[in-house]
């Protein structure tokens, strides 16, 4: 509750500050000023396009692997209390997920496609 209010206040203050700063230099740019910088050259098309993300398989692996964080935080809180049992269970969980990483590495997911 307290957390939410304060976070919103911080976000609002920084947004206002940056907005004020951002607006100070606003003068209309002419068409030649707006050209994207390519060292003098010109582009054929807009830069916004279907960008070929070279690491897309890695991102898929990542969102599946990252889920384990959700389980690990509560685990960390009770680790000392539960002792060896907690160690075993999380060890097993991480071992299962590590298989996935090893498999992905063998498939060359971490290279750029």
């Amino acid at each position, binding site marked *: 509750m307290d957390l939410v209010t304060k976070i919103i206040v911080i976000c609002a203050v920084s947004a206002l500050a940056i907005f004020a700063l951002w607006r100070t230099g606003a003068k209309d740019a002419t068409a030649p000023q707006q050209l994207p910088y390519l060292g003098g050259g010109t582009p054929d098309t807009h830069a916004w396009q279907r960008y070929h993300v070279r690491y*897309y398989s890695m*991102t*898929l*692996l990542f*969102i*599946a692997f*990252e*889920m384990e964080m*959700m*389980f690990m935080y509560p685990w960390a809180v009770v680790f000392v209390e539960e002792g060896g049992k907690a160690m075993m269970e999380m060890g097993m969980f991480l071992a299962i997920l590590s298989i996935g990483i090893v498999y992905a590495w063998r498939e060359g997911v971490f290279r750029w496609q």
Partner: protein
Amino acid sequence: MTLATVLIVAAALIGIGLYGALSQQSFVMLMMGLELMLNGGLLAVIGLWANTMGGAPEGQLLAIIIMAVMAVDMAIGFALVTAVYRKRQADVTESLTTMKH
């Protein structure tokens, strides 16, 4: 902030998500609809947990499971989109109707 208002907000999110999932032609936008529905589900679960379950940990566990479902749904969904695009150069749902050659 009563339970009813929380659940109504969740219902609104589910309604919008359903609209998105049904109406969007492209896979990725369709998945956004699904995610929005799960978002509403998450809110409903936590609302019910906080107000009717007296803090039993199963409610939180269910919320985590919903998030895991989101992650799995996204990973598999995007992998499928990639696979289909590789074959069809298209990302709209209609292209799947001709999938059988």
